[in-house]
């Protein structure tokens, strides 16, 4: 997540003090992502240095100093909002690695491994759902964060379901010889960036 851009978004509403920015940041994200006050002032310092924000005073950073966004900051914010995050290469997901490894280790029941992770994920989703049921009902920021987390975890459980089915089918089929051809170059590059 880009803290500088979220701070710029808060400053786009009007001039604000550092502590106020921290409170509004946390409230706006349902207090799921806490922010250290030192981090707020360090980030504001960088925004000032880069001409994206400016402050009232010239003194040291502190509660008396009020910040506002500059026209360049507004441009940077607009550009950031419309720039998709880099999702081109798959992350090296630890869970994917565990399932891939489980399928190869002799004597390991990959379905049992998958099931252990599925139970954990659903328990985690139960916790997020309790939050959705309670506090998030009257907190739009929190509701959006909870939805995002539930969809992320849901995607992982769906992948586990597919992996489970594929492994089951593969075990039922007669073994096939490994393909002789090398993988296509573009596939070999997958994940190279992370």
């Amino acid at each position: 997540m880009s803290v500088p851009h979220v701070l710029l978004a808060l400053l786009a509403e009007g001039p604000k003090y550092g502590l106020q920015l921290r409170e509004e940041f946390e409230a706006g994200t349902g207090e799921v992502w806490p922010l250290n006050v030192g981090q707020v002032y360090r980030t504001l310092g960088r925004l000032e240095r880069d001409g994206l924000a400016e402050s009232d005073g010239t003194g040291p950073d502190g509660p008396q100093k009020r910040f506002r966004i500059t026209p360049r900051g507004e441009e940077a914010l607009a550009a950031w909002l419309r720039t998709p995050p880099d999702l081109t290469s798959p992350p090296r997901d630890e869970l994917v690695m565990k399932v891939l490894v489980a399928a190869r280790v002799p004597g390991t029941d990959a379905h049992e491994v998958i099931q252990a992770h599925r139970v954990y994920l659903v328990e985690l989703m139960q916790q997020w759902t309790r939050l959705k049921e309670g506090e998030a009902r009257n907190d739009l920021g929190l509701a959006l964060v909870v939805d995002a987390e539930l969809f992320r975890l849901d995607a992982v459980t769906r992948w586990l379901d597919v992996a489970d089915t594929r492994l089951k089918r593969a075990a039922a089929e007669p073994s096939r010889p490994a393909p002789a051809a090398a993988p296509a170059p573009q596939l070999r590059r997958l994940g190279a960036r992370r």
Partner: protein
Amino acid sequence: MSVLELRGVAKTYGQEPATVHALGGVDLSVQAGEMLAVMGPSGSGKSTLLTIAGSLEDPTSGEVLICGMALAGMPRGRKARLRRRVIGYVFQDFNLLPGLTAVENVALPLELDGVAVPKARAAGLAALARLGVADRAGRFPDQLSGGERQRVAIARAVVGDRRLLLADEPSGALDSVNADEVMRLLHEACQRGVAAVVVTHDAQLAAWADRVVFLRDGRLTGRTTRPPGPESLLTPGEVR
């Protein structure tokens, strides 16, 4: 006392050698006020489990008890009465009768059970009001949105004094926000003391339940333990 209890319930279809084992020795129980989700892929035996729990089908072996009463050997008429009075069903495709209004659909199970029409309609209206669709009472199913139809279906499932709610993929083809609303309403019914069993392949729906059990090839392969409260989610490390 458990509202629903399955003891070693097994179900096979067909004759040897083409026998299909749909369920193999399932044990589970659901208490009043509790929502249990049964999660599993297509063909795992979820729907068979639900039809057996709802007394719509008999197990090949094992026992089913509803409110402590064993279904095996129960006379047909008594079983049908139990089904009408104690069990409510919520189906994926709502199953509302198109020729009846919302309130008539909801009151129907009571009327079939011999409750006088005005009393049944009043109970139907009260159930619709609890689900926030009392103002749709006079409308026919095709005059309702998908979300409203499912609320009416839930009202029909809980009308009267039902103690057990059985739901098969209850959010059907609803979008996520409406699906959430359906689960919230089922959960609220549980908070009023109803026991519910929801079968689904969808982890987001299952996550509404107090407990989740996992079914694979007709057998339970795991269950969640009661997770810690949501507070623990709110204190992760700082963001960068």
